[in-house]
């Protein structure tokens, strides 16, 4: 479980996060939604240790990330898997090498153990055939899947996904969403997804947080979101004409 308490962050005097508090349960896909510039990505970066919040705490199974020594932070980091928006694959390495990279760097496993693990993860995301290809030779959807394979190769307890559907066609988006949900349930991972994709909200969102101008305006379950009375959330949800007609 991950708990965030009163996370505040400002850049050059401009408040980006205004005291966000929430809990993310194990085995659930937790979605952080909101329009562009509402602080979703900054919140994610605060949670994974890339941006230090001005105040507040992030607890990983009770361990306070920012008030721990470097060794504890390091061990928490090694329990995380992160899927970045563009995949963040290393250009100079093949798909296989990208997935194997955390094992090479952070473990003392034998070559055969690493090969088996990489093959398993690539097979899990359906990319066994692309193992020897370079990132520049694969599509955007495949890059995301390689990113997922790399994120799960170390058996993470926490999985963070920054806009996993951005730049993908609707069909590939659904496949990526389903893959993340399956992995979350199968390995009982605490998954946090940043998105503004309504399909994701309706398909895989279990616990959902809505951010608006750095504030948490709504939190709840998928089934309750369409019944919301929060005007900003309604506006966000039903910005799509089709959904507006459905609501009507």
């Amino acid at each position: 479980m991950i708990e965030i308490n009163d996370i505040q962050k400002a850049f050059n005097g401009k408040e980006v996060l205004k005291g966000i508090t929430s809990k993310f349960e194990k085995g659930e896909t937790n979605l952080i939604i909101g329009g562009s510039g509402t602080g979703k990505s900054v919140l994610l970066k605060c949670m994974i240790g890339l941006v230090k919040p001005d105040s507040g705490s992030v607890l990983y199974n009770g361990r306070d990330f920012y008030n721990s020594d470097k060794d504890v932070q390091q061990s928490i980091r090694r329990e995380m898997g992160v899927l970045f928006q563009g995949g963040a694959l290393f250009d100079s390495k093949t798909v296989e090498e990208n997935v194997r990279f955390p094992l090479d760097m952070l473990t003392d496993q034998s070559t055969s153990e690493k090969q088996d693990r990489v093959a398993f993860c690539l097979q899990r995301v359906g990319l066994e055939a692309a193992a020897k290809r370079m990132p520049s030779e694969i599509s955007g959807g495949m890059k995301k899947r390689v990113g997922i394979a790399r994120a799960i190769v170390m058996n993470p307890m926490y999985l963070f996904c920054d806009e996993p559907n951005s730049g993908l066609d609707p069909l590939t988006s659904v496949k990526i969403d389903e893959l993340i949900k399956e992995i979350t349930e199968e390995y009982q991972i605490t998954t946090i997804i940043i998105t503004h994709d309504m399909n994701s909200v309706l398909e895989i969102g279990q616990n959902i947080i809505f951010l608006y101008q750095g504030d948490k305006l709504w939190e709840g379950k998928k089934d309750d979101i369409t019944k919301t009375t929060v005007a900003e959330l309604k506006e966000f949800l039903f910005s799509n004409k089709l959904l507006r007609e459905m609501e009507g």
Partner: protein
Amino acid sequence: MSVIGKYFIFLGSLFGKGEKLSVYWRRFLEECVGIGVSSIFIVAIVSTFIGAVSCIQTAYNLVSPIIPVSTVALIVRDMQLLELAPTITCIVLAGKVGSNIASELGTMRITEQIDALEVMGINSSSYLVLPKVMAAMFTFPMLVIFAAFLGIFGGYLAGTLTGVITEKDYLAGIRDSFVPYNLFFMCVKPFVFGFLIATISSYQGFFTSGGALEVGKSSTGAVTNSCISILIADYLLAQLLL
């Protein structure tokens, strides 16, 4: 001043908690190929022509009957060893290697590859930059020795082919009044310049933010700042060591 402070903090981070030695060794060898081996061609071209031109121009200026013709070769040799091979070669390398390092790290930064390393708990600056710095400090002196040899050889080719100096005079000239200390001085310079080019360019690339435009700016900044630092260091080394 804050930039200089940030640069020194960055240098400190290179020697922070690192990864397995085998990882660094592999990265060092990769960087030696990327930084050193891939620069051989440009260094060969530049140094050979600079040697040739310095021979022709020196001969053009030494028209006095009281100065022996072999002096042309002596001047070419000392110019190569003391200044042209180390400094000009490293300025060329600042353009080639410096821009390459800055754009590579800048692109890694804006595409979140460096973030990915940090999230894994890897000391990204040490993993990415330290092997580059070591490789530059290791390969630059070798490239400069190679450049000095080709510069002197270029002078020989130009001098003998155009008839401004005979083979016998040229060979006598490059052996005349040779000071072995100059070789040591020649090797110290690229060692220092390699460190400056690799660290300054890495710093520029590592702290890139924005998009493609900023990567270009980082790359330009890397070359400009590296060249300025080379010239300052060149003066300081001459003052200290000669």
